[in-house]
């Protein structure tokens, strides 16, 4: 018993000494191969940038004064280009709402002007075929539903400019945006024809689907099923998107689940407004539960 300590000490010294001799040798660090440390301080907890009071309905043309101030006294102003763009570019975006009436007038000329017929849900699922017809009809519907102040010629010009530019710059995003537009318009149509009960759920599903990025490549990805409870205003705007109790507790313990949960919430926030939801049934949809199921793509042998 008393020998234990000395033996242990001797063995430790022998082991350390042996290892030192074994791995040792002169240490001549080549400069180019030296690993220079990076000192990191996590500041996310201690200094989150000040945020303005939560505004559920963002107003694009009224930035919070808190952000205006530093812009004026900014230390770096070498690049003169930077001042102008924000103002310019906001305009076409604001114009988007105003423009559809004008477009609607032009659209019928291009599209085949079949009189719109009622859509069943199955027809809604075959997106491509019904699109041309619904675009015109739905846009017309838009006009009657919410009358807007007429867009000026400049607005319209600005819009066409910005959209063609957008499409040229980023074809993909352009496509996806029009796709979701189309979906909405299809649903508007269906809503008018009294197909409410199934189609608007389908429309919510599609809108969120388009915005959702699945947690690809995470271990056991298909088990990362996230449930989000969404509260909506009577206009269909998302007022809160939070994890279900069960999902929240999983997110707290598993970083992969947490990032899957974040992406689900982001998808709902990106969808922003489900303006096609029927007002008279608000009681039914004011709170919804969305469940996100990521699936592995079917595997195929590469050639």
């Amino acid at each position, binding site marked *: 018993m008393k020998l234990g300590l000395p033996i242990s000490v001797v063995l430790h010294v022998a*082991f350390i000494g042996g290892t030192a001799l*074994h*791995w040792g*040798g002169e240490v*001549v*660090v080549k400069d*180019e191969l030296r*690993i*220079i440390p*990076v000192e*990191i*301080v*996590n*500041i*996310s907890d201690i200094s989150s*940038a*000040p*945020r303005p009071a939560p505004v559920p309905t*963002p107003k*694009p043309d009224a*930035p919070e004064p*808190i*952000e205006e101030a530093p*812009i004026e006294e900014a230390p*770096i102003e070498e690049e003169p280009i930077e001042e102008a*763009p*924000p103002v310019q*570019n*906001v305009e076409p*975006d604001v114009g988007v709402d105003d423009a559809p009436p004008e477009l609607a007038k032009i659209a019928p000329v291009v599209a085949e002007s079949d009189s719109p017929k009622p859509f069943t849900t199955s027809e809604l699922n075959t997106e491509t075929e019904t699109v041309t017809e619904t675009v015109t009809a739905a846009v017309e519907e838009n006009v009657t539903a919410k009358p807007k102040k007429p867009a000026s010629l400049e607005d319209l010009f600005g819009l066409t400019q910005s959209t063609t530019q957008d499409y040229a*710059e*980023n074809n993909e995003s352009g496509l996806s*945006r029009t796709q979701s537009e189309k979906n909405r318009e299809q649903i508007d149509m269906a809503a008018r024809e009294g197909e409410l009960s199934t189609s608007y*759920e389908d429309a*919510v599903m599609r809108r*969120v689907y388009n915005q*959702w*990025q*699945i947690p*690809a*490549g995470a*271990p*056991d990805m298909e088990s990362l099923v996230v449930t989000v409870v969404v509260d909506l205003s009577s206009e269909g705007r998302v007022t809160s998107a939070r994890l279900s109790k069960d999902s929240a507790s999983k997110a707290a313990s598993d970083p*992969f*689940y*947490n*990032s*899957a949960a*974040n992406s689900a919430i*982001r998808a709902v*926030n990106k969808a922003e407004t489900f303006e096609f939801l029927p007002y008279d049934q608000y009681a039914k949809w004011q709170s*919804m*539960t*969305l469940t*996100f*199921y990521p699936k*592995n*793509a079917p*595997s195929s042998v*590469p050639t």
Partner: protein
Amino acid sequence: MIRTFLFACILALSVAINSSASAQISIDITKSEIEPTRIAIPEFLRQGAGASPYNKDIADVISADLERSGLFEPLNRSAFVETQTSLDFEPVWQSWRVIDAEVLVSGRVVEQDANTITVEYRLWDVFGNRQLDAARLRTPKENWRRIAHKISDRIYNALTGEKGYFDSRIVYISEDGPKTERRKRLAIMDQDGANQIYLVGGSDLVLTPRFHPNKQRIAFLSYETGRPEVFLMDIATGNRERLGRFDGMTTSPQFSPDGKNLLMTRMVRGNSDVFSYNAASGKLKALTKSPGIDTSPSYSPDGRKIVFNSSRGGKPQIYVMNADGSGVKRISFGSGRYTAPSWSPRGDKIAFTKSEGGKFHIGVMDVDGSNERLLTGSYLDEGPTWSPNGRVLLFTRETRGGQPYVWSVDLTGRNLRKVETGGSASDPAWGPTLK
């Protein structure tokens, strides 16, 4: 009796409450399509004359890192609406939503003194109106690329839940010269192809470099004594040493996760078996004793299992055994020949090379051999090695009559790319992330 009745009443009531609560609409969304996250990375702000050009360069390296992962789509800066002039306030969310940016990275480079820069960075969730991560990093100016990689790692981690792998290095065999007189040199570079350096001259043939799990040390095979033997090398000092003197040839070195043992294959009189070499004692221990060829061992990340390939059943197949050599179990049963298994650092997958029908594939399977999935296929694809987070594989691809190059592929089979190595290269091994 009354108690039971009361209990039944409460139960019935709670069921009723539950069912009334679930009367709200629930919608299921199922998706398998993978789309990259749209990320905006403007040039960083700068403070002090010496902060330039790091403010642009760091943003560019982050952008390139994330783009290469295949999970992010950095947006074109010319489309940005807002130009942030301060890092101390939230961005104008709407101006980033307009361009469909889902996350925004903003940063500031401050020249601390003539030699040092401090970089502050913030990651914003544009549609969630919140900050996801923020950090301040300081280092000598010449080390700026590592700051960029560290920030990439943090962004990757915050958005995928997985550790990043950008602040890491790759060793590989650089090849040049004609086929008959090939010069093979041990080389190292950053994960993104920057800072390429030759570690060993090129007079002797070197093969299969493998990284120590956490030290800047590698094991590799060299013919410098006239026959293949395993050597160890300290990357920073360039010191190298032969790993003991053993009968026969030693090949396929692979460190244990704690770095204390080294697996290797020893070949004596045509029979090769897997051995474990203890760095402290210098002793070799035989783990397999079959008459066939047992080779390419690789530890599981917990160090308790070893995967290897063996021809004991005829064609080479993949087997798993305990770290002491007991409990050998075959896990691959497909047609074709399976070689070079490598256990993922995440523990959930085993990567391998498979040849079948005149073609070579890199594939992955679960550790019990199920869910086999081939990720690539070509004239010659071989030797997969995992990124430190078990998310990406590097391998050697050679075309018929062509030169070998290092390629990478995601473990889901997406994002197949050639890795920039300057010239021809083979036998890549991905090192641990730097501290």
